[in-house]
Structure formats: C-alpha cells, structure tokens
C-alpha cells in the first residue's frame, strides 16, 4: 500500500467531530450509522447531496433528477463505446431513487466470494441470515401486493407464463406502497423505506448528526492513522460554497460513497495500490412494447415482477418509468413520435440486466472528477442480446402489437413474434445497443490477501488504521441481483463487529 500523504493541516476550519465519521448516507453509510449510533458511539454522517423531504420532491423528471441524481445521470464510462452510470446524490444515496428491490445475495455468489477472497467471516451464512431478517423486518420488506402490481408488471407475468419462464413478484422495502410509480422522484408517501426515511433518521434518533451538502475530498492521517476528512460545502448544483472544512474522527472514518467515489476519495488521500481496480456493473437495456389497450404504467409498484435467469447471467424486470424516460425510448420523431406519445398509456417497458464479466477501473481526471474505464466484453454483449430477445418474445406473448427492441441496425418496430429472431440472428457489436447501469461494484475490493485487495475482511483499508470502506465498492465481483440488501447486510455485519471490538 502506498504511504498516505497529507499530514494534518492547521488552517482548515473544523466543522464537527465524532467517534466515527461516515461519508455517504446510502445503503452502506446509513446502515453503518444505524448500527454504530445504537451501539453508543457518536457518529457524524456526511452527504454531498441535499436532504430532501419525500412529500416535496418534484414530480417533473428534470427537476427530480437535477435534485437527487449525481450529474443528472450523465456520468458515463470512459470507454470507446460509453454508457451512463446512474447514482443517487442526496441523503439516502441511490436508495432515494431506486425501486426498493430487495434481494439477498444468491448463495452461489456468497459461497464463491467467501471462498475465493477469504471472506468467510464477513459473509458467514448464519450471520447474514440473522442480519437479513432484521433488516427485512425494519424496512418492511415484502412481495409486491397484488393490488399494486400495475398493468406493466401484470403483463410481464402473463408474458413469462406464456413462455413457460419462471418469474416472481418482486420483494421490495415498500409494504405500504400505494402504486404511485414515482420511486425515481421519491415516494410521495414515504412508503419506500429508503435510507433517508429509515436508517438515517433512526441513527439521528440515537444521536448521530447529519451534514448534508458536504463533499469530502480526502482523508487526513496522523502517521498511518485516519483522523479526519476534509471537504467543502456544496450547493444543490454541486458547486463549492466557502472554504475547506474538516470533520475529525476519534475512532475511525468510514467511506460509504459508492463504487466510484469511495475509491476516488482513497486515491485523493494518497492510497493508490489496487484502489479503483476491479470495477464492475450490471449493464441494463430496456425493451418497449405497444398494446392495443391501456397498460397503465402510471400506476403500480415501479418494478413489480421479475424473471431471474441466474444460470444465464440475466435478470428480467418490469420497469415502470416516468413518462419522460419512457418517451425517450419510443422510436420516431416529428409527428410519428408525437402520435405515439399521445397513447403513452398503451406501452409496457421491461428491462434486462446482465452479470457482466468485464472489469474496469476508477481513476480521477486532472480536475479531480471520476473517470471510469469500463468496456463490456463480447460475451457480455451476447448476454444482453439474449436478454433483449427474450423480452421481445415475452412482450409479444403478452399481446403486444409492436415491440421496440432499441437495437441499432434492426427495424425500429417489430410487428410480430417471427421477427424476434432478427435480434439474435448474428452477433451484435456493442455500439448497436443502448445501455445504462445503476448497479456498480468494486474499486475497493475486500479480501484477506493485501496483494489482491484494498480492504480486509473486516472492511478496514489494508496498511492504515481507522479507515474503513462499507459500500458496494468492497464487492470483488458483481452479484447478479439488485445490490442494496447485500450492501446493507455487509455494512451491518462489519459495523457490528467494529462496535463489538471497540466495546471489548
């Protein structure tokens, strides 16, 4: 591990201090804050984004994305064929904009990670079972209620059943969901138990303090011991306001800023070896179908039905999006597009995500911005191709009269199931697909071998003291499922062990 630089400065104003300073309030940070504060430690939570009230979050997508999404969703990979990487930037992190899907880490994945990276204790099956159960109770996790399945999910169920594919209703942290289909903009009733309405206030109730609008740049060390973080106040647009500010940590700093920004902060702090390596994601693509009747995407749980195909590296999901995003996926321009938009209620949209094999890396630009080098492999593209073909087949099986595969070089509109084979007729080049990713992993990978990892099985950064990483960046591989629950469980377990160690 490179020797940390940046000795403690004296001219920077100190904003706050606590036993633990946690950077980020998403699934990892909020969970760590909840555990440590309840164990009696003083905690400060730092969040770059704003603190938003669910009741007042805007419905119009541009306003909502500008408020709660990092760079309004425009951060892209720096590959030859780039695609966007979507992350939340608000109190609650990405849990404030996701659909609240809850998946336990699949057992084969858990087993492989534990075995291959020496993470047997962190990923101990019995411990995770206990923690999953607790989180699921606290966050009101349940399968989507039939009453809020919505037309989009219901049609996917029909399509899957017609093709003999085994699907299931989605489990979400939103037992009281009333089907507003506004997860991306923030649940107006606060039914989704994202971190800003669950673990963040719970930690605050146990004395944790929250500073929103605070961007951390680096960790400061005394010798090899992390003692503080330094950053700056930012406004809602992310622009710096005022000078540099320090927050001191008596016992430790926990980075939970996600798979891009946790590695970036580590690198800015002089920790370079293997930091930012091993980045991976679940690339996703959406397919839209038009029906000769109302689908009703505007009502129902945002993602109510799914078809896991783990042996194929795929997961298919219904995906109800705000009209702006749905409209952008509908082909045509001019009057053709306009005609389709006048019947926006007749469309269903489903997505496929793939457990990509590609590995990339996170670095910073000269200006300190993240640069994510990540290029999908031919095998990854082939997986996406099959997922898109399956979605198209399911849409026709569910009764769609038109399907829009969103693959360049193919007809924009498929009018019958016999055309689905066009999608898989020949290998696709990556640039013919339109992709995005919101499940990001790696960059500060965990492992028992310091030569292969950044953090140890207790999620402490190798080679220094008092510095931990608790978020998706510690996963040495992607999971094949929505990562929120796994992030929370791993952060919970590591924070619990940290609290116990301090007590002892």
């Amino acid at each position, binding site marked *: 591990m490179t020797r940390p630089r940046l000795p403690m400065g004296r001219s920077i104003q100190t904003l706050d201090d606590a036993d633990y300073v946690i950077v980020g309030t998403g699934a990892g940070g909020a969970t760590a804050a909840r555990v440590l504060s309840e164990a009696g430690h003083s905690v400060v939570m730092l969040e770059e984004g704003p603190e938003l009230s669910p009741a007042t979050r805007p419905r*119009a*997508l*541009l*306003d909502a994305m*500008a408020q709660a999404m990092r*760079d*309004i969703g425009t*951060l*892209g990979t720096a590959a030859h*064929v780039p695609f966007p990487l979507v992350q939340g930037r608000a109190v609650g992190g990405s849990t404030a904009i996701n659909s609240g899907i809850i998946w336990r880490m699949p057992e084969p994945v858990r087993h492989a990670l534990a075995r291959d990276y020496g993470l047997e204790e962190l990923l101990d099956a019995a411990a995770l079972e206990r923690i999953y159960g607790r989180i699921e109770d606290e966050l009101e996790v349940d399968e989507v209620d039939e009453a809020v399945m*919505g*037309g989009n999910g*219901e049609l996917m169920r*029909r*399509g899957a059943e017609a093709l003999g*594919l085994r699907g299931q209703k989605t489990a979400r942290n939103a037992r009281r969901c009333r*089907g507003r*289909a506004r997860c991306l903009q923030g649940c107006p009733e606060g039914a989704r138990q994202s971190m800003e309405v669950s673990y963040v206030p719970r930690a605050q109730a146990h004395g944790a303090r929250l500073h929103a609008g605070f961007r951390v740049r680096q960790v400061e060390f005394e010798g090899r011991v992390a003692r503080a973080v330094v950053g700056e106040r930012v406004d809602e*647009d992310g622009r710096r306001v005022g000078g540099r500010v320090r927050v001191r940590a008596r016992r430790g700093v926990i980075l939970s800023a996600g798979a891009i920004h946790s590695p970036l902060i580590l690198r800015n702090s002089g920790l370079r070896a293997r930091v930012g390596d091993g980045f991976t994601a679940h690339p996703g693509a959406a397919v839209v179908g038009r029906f000769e*009747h*109302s689908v*009703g*995407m*505007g*009502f129902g749980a945002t993602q109510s039905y799914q078809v896991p195909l783990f042996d*194929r590296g795929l997961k298919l999901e219904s995906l109800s999006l*705000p*009209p*702006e*995003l*749905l*409209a*952008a996926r509908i082909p045509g*321009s*001019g*009057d*053709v*597009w*306009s005609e389709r*938009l*006048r*019947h*926006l209620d007749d469309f269903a949209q489903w997505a496929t995500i793939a457990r990509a094999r590609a590995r990339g890396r996170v670095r910073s630009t000269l*200006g300190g*911005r993240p640069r994510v080098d990540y290029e999908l492999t031919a095998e990854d593209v082939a997986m996406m191709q*099959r997922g898109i*073909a*399956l979605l198209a*087949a399911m849409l026709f*099986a*569910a*009764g769609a009269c038109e399907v829009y595969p969103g693959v360049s070089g193919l007809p924009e509109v498929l009018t*019958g*199931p016999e055309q*689905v*084979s066009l999608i*898989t007729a020949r290998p696709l080049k990556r*640039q*013919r697909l*339109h992709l995005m990713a919101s499940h990001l992993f790696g960059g500060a990978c965990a492992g028992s071998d310091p030569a292969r990892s950044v953090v140890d099985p207790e999620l402490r950064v190798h080679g220094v003291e008092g510095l931990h990483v608790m978020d998706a960046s510690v996963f040495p591989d992607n999971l094949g499922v929505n990562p929120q629950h796994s992030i929370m469980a791993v952060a919970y377990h590591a924070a619990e062990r940290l609290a116990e160690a301090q007590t002892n």
Partner: protein
Amino acid sequence: MLFSAAAEGTMMRFEGPWAEAVLGAFAGCGDSLVSSPTDGVDYAASYARMLRRATGRAALGLRLALWLAALSPLWLLGKCATLAGLPQEERGELLARLVAHPSFAVRELMLLLKLCAAMALFAAPAVRQQSGYDEAQAAQSDVRLRLPRVDERLALRVWPANDDRPGEVELPPREAP
C-alpha cells in the same frame, strides 16, 4: 420564452433558438402532442438545465449534439441552412435520420436531445394529460388485460446452438382473429 434559458448563463445567444427548433422538431407540428403554444413547453430551458447540471464531458456532448442537429441540413443535406430554416415536416425527417445514424456517437447524442425534448414536454401539465400516462393512477388501475395474442408457433433460439442447456423458447399459437 425562447431566451429564458440563455438568461441562465450557460448557452450562447443563438443556442436558445436552436434548442427550441431542434427539440421542438422531435414533437412534430401537425396533429401533434403539443396542441398550442400555450401548453407551456420550454425546450430551451430544459436544454439549459441539462447543460448546467451535466458533467463537463456530457455538457460538451450536449452542446455538440445541438450543433450537429441544428447544422444537419448543412452536413447531411448539403443545404446552406440551419434546422430552423427548414419546413416543419422536413425537420422531423432529418431528426429521424440522425437518430438512426450509422455513427454510435451521433445516435447517442441525438438520444440525449430526445430525452431533453421529452423532459420539456412532460413538464407541461397539458402534455401529460394528452398522453394519458396518468390515467391509470387516476383510475387506481382498473386495467383491462387481454389474453396473449400470437399468431403462429415460433421457436426462438435465444441461446447458442452448441449450448447444451435448454433455452429455446416457444411462443404459444396466436388466437384466431
């Protein structure tokens, strides 16, 4: 309205009208979704907001996208005009060509503009209402679903032929009309 976005300080003076012309062309003119100017769609403001909040790289892409689209009559048709100088119906046709352009970069940039256009459109209550998107929410989803309607048996090979795991999907027969 045209220059409201330029006032936010992120666009050059002529880019506001360009954004109005280009993004407006996505929605068409005839019997279109935007029934009248009073619908309150402000394309330039939507574009300016995206420009201001995007990463530096994406903002550069957005600006390039606007210039490519606005000047597409020049580099695509060889006409000495901007998109705003073309009749409405020709604008839509030109955008369709750009959206399906062989270059990945051009396609993605046009998709970004289309997203801007959609954001501007659906920020207007009248457009949301005309689209019918919110009807299901209002009706608490009494959605009438039909049975699958597929007209012939079709064996769809989704997995490679040499893959020994079963993956072939057969669609059920379509009901007689």
